[in-house]
């Protein structure tokens, strides 16, 4: 069955008829063609599909799109303004927090969720927040460095 669902995706209001069994990741990638959100596993194992739902990091691969009625959804495509990078995007780019890049959108969205709750996290807090996001390239060293750099930069800008 389909139902009419109102969403706000990256600041843009959308109304859509969405099947009850459609996963949010399928809706984002296939219906809305927002392919920045990645599927790295068969459901809830790797964190690559992390998006923000009402500001909180959530796994799009185990979320039904129809349950997001009225929600504000943010994906990697909505980060940054006017074509410029967000603080986290810049930090991941400059500090090599990304290698193959496949985990990167999820990693950045989970980090964004963290920094909004906790603008100055220590390493243990970063690890706890990103513990569900697997990266196979970096050994996480430069990811932690990237998150720290973004936090410092945002603190400097504020």
């Amino acid at each position: 069955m389909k139902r009419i669902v109102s969403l706000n995706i990256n600041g843009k209001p959308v109304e859509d008829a969405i099947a009850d069994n459609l996963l949010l990741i399928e809706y984002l990638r296939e219906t809305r063609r927002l392919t920045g959100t990645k599927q790295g596993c068969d459901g809830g194992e790797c964190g690559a599909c992390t998006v923000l739902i009402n500001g909180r990091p959530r796994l799009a691969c185990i979320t039904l799109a129809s349950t997001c009625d009225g929600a504000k959804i943010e994906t990697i495509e909505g980060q940054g303004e006017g074509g410029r990078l967000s603080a986290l995007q810049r930090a991941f780019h400059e500090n090599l927090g990304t290698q193959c890049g496949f985990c990167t959108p999820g990693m950045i969205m989970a980090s964004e969720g963290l920094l909004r709750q906790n603008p100055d996290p220590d390493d243990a807090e970063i690890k706890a927040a990103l513990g569900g996001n697997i990266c196979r390239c970096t050994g996480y060293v430069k990811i932690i460095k990237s998150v720290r750099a973004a936090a410092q930069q945002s603190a400097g800008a504020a």
Partner: protein
Amino acid sequence: MTKPRHFHVAGTPVPLVDGLEKVTGRARYTADLTTDDALVGRILRAPRGHARIIRIDTSRAKALEGVRAVVTGADCAQSYGVIPIAMNEYPMARDVLRYRGEPLAAVAAIDAKTAQAALDLIELTLEDLPAVYTAKEARAPDAVQLHPDKQGNLEREVHHSFGDPEAGMAKADLVRDEVFSCAEVNHAQMEPHAALADYDPERGHLTFHSVSQVPFYVHLTLARCLGMEAAQIRVVQPFIGGGFGARTETLNFEIITALLARAAGGKVMMHLTREESFLTHRGRPQTDVALKIGMTDKGKITAVKCEVVMAGGAYAGYGLVTILYAGALLHGIYDIENVKYDGYRVYTNLPPCGAMRGHGTVDVRHAFECLLDRMAHELGLDPFAVRRANLLRAPTFTPNDLMVNSYGLGACLDKVETASNWYNRKGKLPPGRGLGMACSHYVSGAAKPVHWTGEPHAVVSMKLDFDASITVLTGAADIGQGSSTIVAVAAADILSVDMSRIRVIAGDSALTPKDNGSYSSRVTFMVGNAAIEAARALRQKLVLAAAKKLESLPEDIVCEGETFSVKGSAQSMLSFQEVALAALAEEGTITVKGTFTTPIKAQGGKHRGGAVGSTMGFSYGAQVVEVTVDIATGLIRIDKVWAALDCGFAINPLAVEGQIEGSVWMGMGQALSEETRFVNGLAVHANLLDYRVPTMVESPDIEVHIVETIDPLGPFGAKEAGEGALSGFPPALVNAVADAIGLEANFLPMTPDRVLEALIKQRRAAKRKVAS
């Protein structure tokens, strides 16, 4: 023009040239190439470990509405494989299936639901055969034989002897032997496998996108298996979500996707699930290493004997290369005169193994560095001193004819010894905490490619056009390691131009020169050298044009920071654009190319299999690992890692650091928690929860020290940096655990249950000793 601006040069850190796409989500990976007109491909996989295929009835599947194509093993009678002499695999099993999960049939349908429904309508009639799941079972005298031409299920045995191993052992003051058992591991690259095949029946052309590290090999294999001319095929490489060796050979699903597209006369998208990606495998095989080392009381190694048995899975893949590597790279790291190696690669009814980061060397290096440590301990020698007693002196050739031109292992030892404060801390940490160290090395590209054509090993082209931009064309597959960035840096450095003037186009057989692919850490060395040569050729043309314009001699032209001037006279200075246009006026659009060919002397010994292990230069690494072990739970925590790597020269130090961190950490996964597991051939690990890749929570800080030795053949003096550090971690960990709790473990991974069991055994043994 004012003073030349400061431009990027090799040796300074630079972000990836394709990093912006990755952090913004604009990077398109294979699965992101969604199109409405693509059919959905799905694969039917074997439900048994070993069986004769009596019948595969696809009639009901074909009749289902929305199904556009169904293919089976009958649709491809052409075997394939990465090694020309060992092509014993078919994209879908024919006659006999040899592992659970092997593709048997495939469907292309209008949507995923229909494709799945069609798979369910395919009827299999199978006749079970006995199956062998371990090397021991496979080698038993009465074992069922997987391949008719391979008696005893031996894919390849290797017997190498250098020097006089017996005499060497006789000279030793201490001889010790141990057997180490290392579990099978998988690459678990973050991107699940995917392919998009588009067949145009009118033209008879196939356009193919996939996740490959070796688009060139995929191209050749598609031509072979589809019976097409290579000229009718175009292979394009989108962004690749990691490889680590999983994709260094053509994979069955790639050929299947192409077969489906041709059968359907259109476009087929194939997404494999994570489970299917695990089943496609090609990981590091379960390996038993029986190692014997002879040593003088001063720690000098007098002889080594090593027997290796690898359980390779159902098909050849890279197997014979893996078993050769394991023996060949006993050499090249230390000065050892007498070496005997016996290797056995065995077929089993499990998913085929292949190449994985540190190909062939990791488990053997593990055994070697562990045993070295234990012998040092027995002789009362420091682990660092034992390594130093066995250093090579470059330049040299090893007894198996491996060329060593630069050798920074000693410097790596110095770095991590100092950084970890080894002398003041080793043996002095509180109970349950310990320090361990180990060394490692790896090749900078195989000196002989598996597909030998006689061509140069790498070609890079460059184009300079009316807009004064430089387009670099390379077939090298950037799988996240930053190969496109290295090529751009090489061009920018030699031409002394801003990076923004350079565009890199990579991995499209219609546009870019052929490249063998991203494996054996060959790209920086070979493609980097080819890029330097191409850039030099372009620079020469620009210098000639500038000389003409400035009415000077070419040798007096200074090319720096996008300007050209005559040496000693700064007044008449031309901009890059002016010189580019002057050069174009001579001949129009300028295209140049550079190549790299490995020198004959780098190509290894004349003995059978002697080419494997041969390379232009080895990276060398040393690392120290600090651990805390909880003896109540068996849980090991890694507190800190100090890793030094001799990469010759760090063209991009940021990427070198990233590669070292990543490889140390991948070694940590293998050492601590990663292993594939099968129950009667059924994979029970095939997801990212049961296959335990370390998360950020259990991952330590890794302090990287780069050692530069400036290799005479390397691009700017560089060698590899992406694999060499991996194999140092597992033995350094096991040595650290021995230091922490006195447990000498001969198994990987060091999971808590295994550690506890070993501790209990050790306590019982100690009690028995007291009692007797």
